[in-house]
C-alpha cells in the first residue's frame, strides 16, 4: 500500500512504539465511516454518513489537501501492527492564530478497555503535538463530551489544561451534557 503524503509535513509516516500515523488513506475511509456512524452520539455529526458521502469527502476535501501548503485539516490513519485502529488529525487549522482542533476517533471496541485506550491515545497524542509544533502551530485544543472522565486522562497526563466547561451544551442519549475544552500551548 502506497502512503499518501501531506506536502507540508515532508514525511509520510510517523511512529512511536507500535503506533504509526500515516496520511489518511482511501482504503481506510469506509472503515472510518463505520466507526463514525457507530459513535455518532459523541460526534458533532448530525446524520449517518453513507459510503457515497465518505468517498465524495475523500475526493473533494481530503485528497486536494495533500498538496496544500496551508491545509485546513491534516488527517491521519492510526495503524498498529498494520491494522487500522482509528484516525486522528488537526482540523479547523487557523493559520493566522496558529491553532488547530485535535480530532480523533478510535475503533469502537477500544473504548471499553480503559488501559488500552490510554496507551494508544497517549502515543498518537505525542506524535500529533510534535507534528503541530513542526508546522509552526502555537496551540492545539480539543472538545469532548463530559460523559466519562477516563477519556480525558491522556490529555491531562500530557499537560493539557481544561479551559472551559460548557454546561448543558449538547444532547447525548436524551440528556443535556457538558462539553469540555482541553488545550495546550505547544
Amino acid at each position, binding site marked *: 500500500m502506497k502512503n499518501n503524503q501531506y506536502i507540508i509535513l515532508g514525511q509520510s509516516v510517523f511512529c512511536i512504539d507500535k503506533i504509526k500515523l500515516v496520511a489518511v488513506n482511501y482504503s481506510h475511509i469506509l472503515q472510518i465511516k463505520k466507526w463514525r456512524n457507530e459513535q455518532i452520539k459523541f460526534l458533532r455529526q448530525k446524520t449517518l454518513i453513507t459510503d457515497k458521502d465518505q468517498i465524495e469527502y475523500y475526493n473533494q476535501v481530503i485528497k486536494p489537501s495533500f498538496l496544500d501548503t496551508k491545509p485546513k485539516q491534516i488527517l491521519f490513519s492510526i495503524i498498529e501492527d498494520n491494522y487500522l485502529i482509528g484516525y486522528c488529525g488537526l482540523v479547523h487549522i487557523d493559520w493566522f*492564530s496558529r491553532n488547530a482542533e485535535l480530532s480523533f476517533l478510535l475503533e469502537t471496541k477500544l473504548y471499553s478497555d480503559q488501559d488500552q485506550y490510554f496507551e494508544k491515545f497517549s502515543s498518537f497524542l505525542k506524535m500529533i503535538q510534535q507534528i503541530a509544533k513542526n508546522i509552526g502551530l502555537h496551540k492545539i485544543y480539543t472538545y469532548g463530551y463530559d460523559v466519562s472522565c477516563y477519556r480525558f486522562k491522556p490529555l491531562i497526563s500530557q499537560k493539557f489544561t481544561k479551559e472551559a466547561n460548557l454546561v448543558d451544551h*449538547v444532547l447525548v442519549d436524551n440528556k443535556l451534557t457538558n462539553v469540555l475544552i482541553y488545550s495546550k500551548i505547544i
Partner: protein
Amino acid sequence: MRNTTISRIREKDLNKVITWKSNQRLSDQIMARKKHLNLNEAKMWLKTNERDKNQVIKGIYQEEFNKLFFVGIVRLMFIDFKAKTTELGIYIGEEDYHNKGVGSNALRLIINHAFQNLNLNKIYLKVANTNEKAIKLYLNNNFKIEGILSEHYFNLTTNAYEDIYHMSLFKKSYII
C-alpha cells in the same frame, strides 16, 4: 437611544456589509478574518445564511429622523433545536452608533427572539478579552463566563494574542 429594530437585511444595505467585512479593526474586534467581497458575493453570502435552517441573521436598524439606518448585524448560529442551544454573534459596524445603547437594544431583541420565539434554552458566545465594553454588556445581561481560551486569537491590528471568553446565558437566568 431608542427605536432599534432587528429585521431582514435589505439588499440595498449590502454595500455597508462589504465595507464592514473589509475593515481590519472591526474584523479583529469580532474575531473574524477580513474579507473583500464584491456585491454578487455579498448577495450570495446573505442568501446562503438566510437559507440556513440552523441560523437566524438579521440587520440591526436604528430609526432616526423618521428614517431607518442599517448599523449592524446580529446572528444566531449553529442552532441546535434538540439541545436548544445557539451561538450568538453581534456587531455594530457603524462607528457613529457605538456607545449609544444600540448594541444593548439589539442584544435584548435577539435574546427575546431566541428564548421566546425559537424556544431555545441557552445562548453562548465568544468574545475577545480586550473587548471590555462587550464583556460588560454581556455580564449586565446575566451572561456567565464558562471558560477562557488563552492565547487563542491572533489580532492582526495589535499583532498580539488575545484570550477568548466563552460566555453563556440560560433562559432561566434571563430577566425579560
